């Protein structure tokens, strides 16, 4: 890879382009269980932002309720955050994103939070293309309430106390895709390398970027036969491609054979490189994405990678033709129409 985002500053410490240290991206100590997948994801979020040299103050962290939704406490202490209501992060995100176009939203949710109680708000958020990174830390259970099945639990899955799940899982990626999402990815907390690249790509995306990350719950759903366990994920991960995010076109330095790598240009000037692995997969083809998800759903593999990308649909603030200045920065002068205008309005009611 071309970019070495972290450099050595005068003091001999690792800093990024902003001169910020890794510790500037830290959160409070985690109170999640040791080994919880959610913690790995937090690490990659911190790493990606550090490497991208995004100022923590420009980030806003949002979440619903759950172990996953607690995790924004554990990264980016210098970012504002909002641990909202169970299943309702999408609406909070929509409001915040529109109120302030200049902030970058990272939402963290769980499978219960998004696919059970929150599926409605999720779908409508995606439809509106609210600019944000939407992470689902998917462990197939309700962690925080001690291990009930969520809507992403596999059919036939067994949990000790609860028994067998008789229902088909909700596929978060499929839901996102048919809600017209322009960035749909699946990853695995046990594959930090890919995860970080996908996070960077998601942060470059102008609309809603959905990341469905299998994130094992070591306390309630980590037995080997569960498709949401570390062991199963490690054994069955099937990456669609080797994905690399490159900040600028001209920084691409990877050597490759013609046909081996596909490039997708992003709206913000960055580029995504997809290196072919076992099979051909075109992440810009919706139909192919649909087919792949349908074929591999309930199959024996954990398909990961960027499933679909398209920046065709403008992000919500553009759709709404809003001023470039963040609404929250507008002053009374801009927000309160003149005295004369009021007189004029009233004329129609005389």
């Amino acid at each position: 890879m071309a970019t070495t985002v972290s450099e050595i500053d005068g003091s001999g410490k690792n800093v990024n382009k902003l001169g910020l240290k890794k510790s500037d991206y830290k959160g409070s100590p985690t109170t999640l269980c040791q080994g919880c997948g959610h913690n790995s994801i937090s690490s990659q979020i911190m790493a990606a932002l550090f490497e991208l040299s995004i100022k923590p103050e420009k980030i806003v962290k949002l979440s619903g309720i759950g172990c996953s939704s607690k995790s924004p406490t554990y990264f980016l202490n210098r970012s504002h955050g909002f641990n909202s209501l169970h299943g309702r992060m999408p609406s909070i995100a929509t409001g915040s994103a529109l109120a302030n176009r200049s902030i970058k939203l990272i939402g963290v949710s769980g499978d219960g939070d998004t696919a059970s109680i929150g599926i409605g708000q999720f779908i409508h958020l995606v439809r509106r293309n609210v600019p944000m990174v939407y992470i689902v830390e998917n462990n197939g259970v309700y962690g925080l309430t001690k291990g009930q099945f969520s809507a992403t639990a596999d059919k036939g899955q067994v949990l000790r106390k609860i028994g067998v799940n008789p229902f088909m899982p909700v596929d978060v990626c499929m839901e996102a895709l048919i809600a017209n999402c322009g960035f749909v990815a699946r990853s695995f907390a046990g594959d930090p390398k890919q995860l970080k690249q996908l996070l960077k790509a998601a942060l470059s995306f102008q609309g809603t970027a959905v990341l469905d990350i299998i994130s094992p719950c070591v306390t309630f759903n980590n037995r080997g036969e569960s498709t949401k366990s570390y062991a199963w994920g490690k054994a069955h991960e099937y990456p669609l491609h080797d994905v690399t995010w490159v900040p600028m076109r001209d920084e691409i330095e990877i050597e490759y054979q013609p046909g081996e790598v596909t490039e997708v240009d992003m709206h913000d000037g960055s580029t995504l490189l997809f290196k072919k692995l076992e099979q051909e997969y075109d992440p810009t083809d919706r139909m192919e994405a649909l087919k792949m998800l349908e074929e591999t759903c309930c199959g024996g593999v954990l398909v990961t990678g960027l499933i679909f990308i398209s920046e065709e649909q403008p992000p919500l603030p553009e759709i709404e033709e809003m001023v470039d200045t963040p609404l929250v920065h507008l002053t009374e002068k801009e927000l309160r129409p003149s005295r004369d205008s009021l007189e004029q309005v009233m004329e129609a009611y005389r």
Partner: protein
Amino acid sequence: MAESKASVREKTDTKKDKETIVNDFSMVVATVNGSGSQTSNLAIIRSLFRMGIPVSGKNLFPSNIQGLPTWFTIRVSSEGHTARRENNEILVAMNPTTFSEDLRDLGSEGVCFYDDRFKITEERPDVTFYPMPVRELVKEINPPTDLRDYIANMAYVGIVAEMLGIDMDEIRGALETHFMGKQSAVDLNMRTIQAASSSAEENLIKQDSYYLERSDQTHDLLLIDGNTASALGAIYGGVSFAAWYPITPASSLADALEQYLPQLRMDEETGKATYVVIQAEDELAAIGMAVGAGWAGARAMTSTSGPGISLMAEFAGLAFFAEIPIVVSDVQRMGPSTGLPTRTSQGDILFVRFLGHGDTNQVMLLPGSIAECFEFGWQAFDLAERLQTPIFVLSDLDLGMNLWMSEKFAYPSQSFDRGKILAAEDLDRIGKFSRYQDVDGDGITYRTLPGTDHPLAAYFTRGTGHDENAIYSEKPDDWEMNIERIWRKLETAREMLPRPVIQHTKDAHIGLIGYGSTDPAIQEALDRLNTKNISADYLRIRAVPFVHEIETFIREHDVVYVIEMNTDGQMYKLLQLEVPDQAEKLHSLTHNNGLPLSAHWVVEAVLDREGG
């Protein structure tokens, strides 16, 4: 066109016995909904208003789109009373299915305009009947088929105008306003109206006593509905974010936002919007978006009615506890449950006051007039940001959707109050920041906005228990301290909220308390009670929690009637709780059948209690 009135006048002379009644009646137009009668009724009421005559208009419509009965009532009152009257003196009968019933309900000695195809089945010898040749008139105009019903409705405008004396020029003016200058539409309508008027002139002989005469009582007034006023208030309050979900009777508030914002709030250079309005997928999302935007620093609002309020409970509690400024307009309709979507009530007072599980106390504003809809519309944002709490503005269907006269709206008297916000510079200066620390002792703490470019700015908002630094805490002391501070803030709030409006009469020993849309009925009742030698003072509540004047008022009177439109006596209950030692003085008078309050009802209810 002063002749037409004059000609009516002349005809009167042929009538004997009956006294002439000028500018004082209530007229009901019975039509079928979806038939376009709204334009006709607006033409009538607006032209009266333009003639300087005090009017008010109420639309009693079904929860339906097309084909069911609708009644539009226009009250004309030289004394300026605008409340609902229980009897109407004039009926314009355009709906065959309700004709008998409408006729039966007509006040004694009333006047009945009716489509001449209807058969009169009620014995009403006291009534003056004016048959209207609707079919012929429509034939004469010969409009396209899909406009037939509409034109039929225009016909009665002309006939009523002729017989009661509405100025044709004012009708034209009203139509011009209505069609925003679209001349072809105005012409088609005027043609019909004129034809109808001529027909009446030729064929009908004035036999009733009701007359309209130009006056000067509406000078500098507006004729407008409350929802539009609320929306304009919000716009002049700088609303930058609104999310809503369609629901009667609140939709027209959002409609008015969508109508006026593009005119009033486009960036001049770029032509882009300095606001955003989102039609959400439901009310949970609507308030969630507003909370997100309010948290981020926008002036954020949502508007809804009963069922939407129920769905907003969880977010209302979050906003209260995490101290996020938002404005929620509740245009009340009749509940419980889906209830009567097109009928008015004041039934959400208790529910909104405690909206959200756990201990939640919401702040409510209660506009009692159109001008207050506007005024509270902008003040609500100042209060929300100053107090960092949701502000619920409760009006109702009657105030929100019906047509009222109003003083002109006063341009906001004070600049934005954004409350306690710390910018990066402030943080530099102070060198520390605790989101929930009561620095000033008023219970209101400082906040920073997301994106503030300062390493100290960030904090983590949560609906869970937290300490002064917004960090999760289960410590009993942290919980208590935080809650006590919030309750201290609620005390601070009291004196910031709109004070009640109090009217004193000499030697009154009884007091009336009301709020919201019942004001006109109570005002009129006061006058009437006075004529019966019952003098009462009157206090109109404009906000909850209560300011001290309310307690004083109760203490000053021997007996206090709390008048409201709900079943439970909800405000009465809140008042009982406010002054327990005076609770016995308070009496609840409740009216709750979906119709707006009338002065008659108030008078009877008070007389009943006073043994009058």
